[in-house]
């Protein structure tokens, strides 16, 4: 593995661990959002890894692999046990999520990678757009009088 790629993976891993570390310290209602964000980022990293490895010659001709996966799984379902079918359903649900992600990407402009962290010849891993930025902006409202005012009536009663 080339050094820049290793650095990138370490960066992603550290980022994920930071997000996970935050989880127990935030309100339950926000944990739902953050857990979805973490899962989403893990999915996007996994997708990027799979897509990159599919381009390597050792894997063979995989140009239609992504589009054929759904059909393949549908065929396999007929030969599987109920428990195996559950796993296939999960994979198909993941495929639906990937489609949603593709739709989502069209709505969010690409975030440039920090210079020096992008391995040459490799597509940039789609980062979770604005996840940390969103939490930073959210934190900036802590102890803000505007938010105090929203709950003024509630707290006074």
């Amino acid at each position, binding site marked *: 593995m080339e050094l820049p790629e290793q650095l990138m993976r370490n960066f992603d891993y550290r980022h994920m661990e930071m997000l996970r570390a935050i989880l127990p310290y935030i309100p339950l209602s926000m944990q739902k*959002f953050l857990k*979805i964000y973490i899962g989403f980022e893990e999915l996007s990293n996994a997708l990027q890894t799979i897509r990159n490895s599919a381009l390597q010659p050792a894997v063979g001709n995989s140009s239609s692999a992504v589009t054929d996966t759904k059909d393949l799984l549908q065929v396999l379902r007929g030969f599987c046990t109920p428990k195996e079918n559950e796993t296939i359903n999960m994979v198909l649900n993941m495929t*639906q999520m990937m489609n949603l992600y593709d739709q*989502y990407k069209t*709505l969010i402009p690409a975030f440039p990678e920090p210079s020096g962290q992008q391995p040459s010849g490799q597509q940039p891993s789609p980062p979770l757009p604005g996840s940390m930025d*969103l939490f930073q902006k959210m934190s900036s409202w802590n102890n*803000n009088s505007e*938010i105090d005012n929203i709950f003024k009536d*509630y707290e006074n009663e």
Partner: protein
Amino acid sequence: MNDDWMNHPKLKQMSQKKLNVIKNLITQARQKKPDEILPFFMAVNARAAKLGIRFNDDETGIILDALKENMSPEDLGKVEMIRNFAKMMGNSGSQTIK
């Protein structure tokens, strides 16, 4: 500003105290810049949780619908994505693909 959200049937069963919080939240959020609305909403949500106020899915939906017209397209995309994922996660246990 569209105030149709105030006529939502789910709000009729809500306590006046909680309704006031939602009214204040929407009023203040609408005065924010488009890219400030989502973080502001999340910050209010966090404060509400500290005070023991929970917004269920219906209430969150009403609030976000009321704020959608003022949000930036980027944040709107995030909100829709989170909603879709939350729906899929909610349905994944019972969903059968035929």
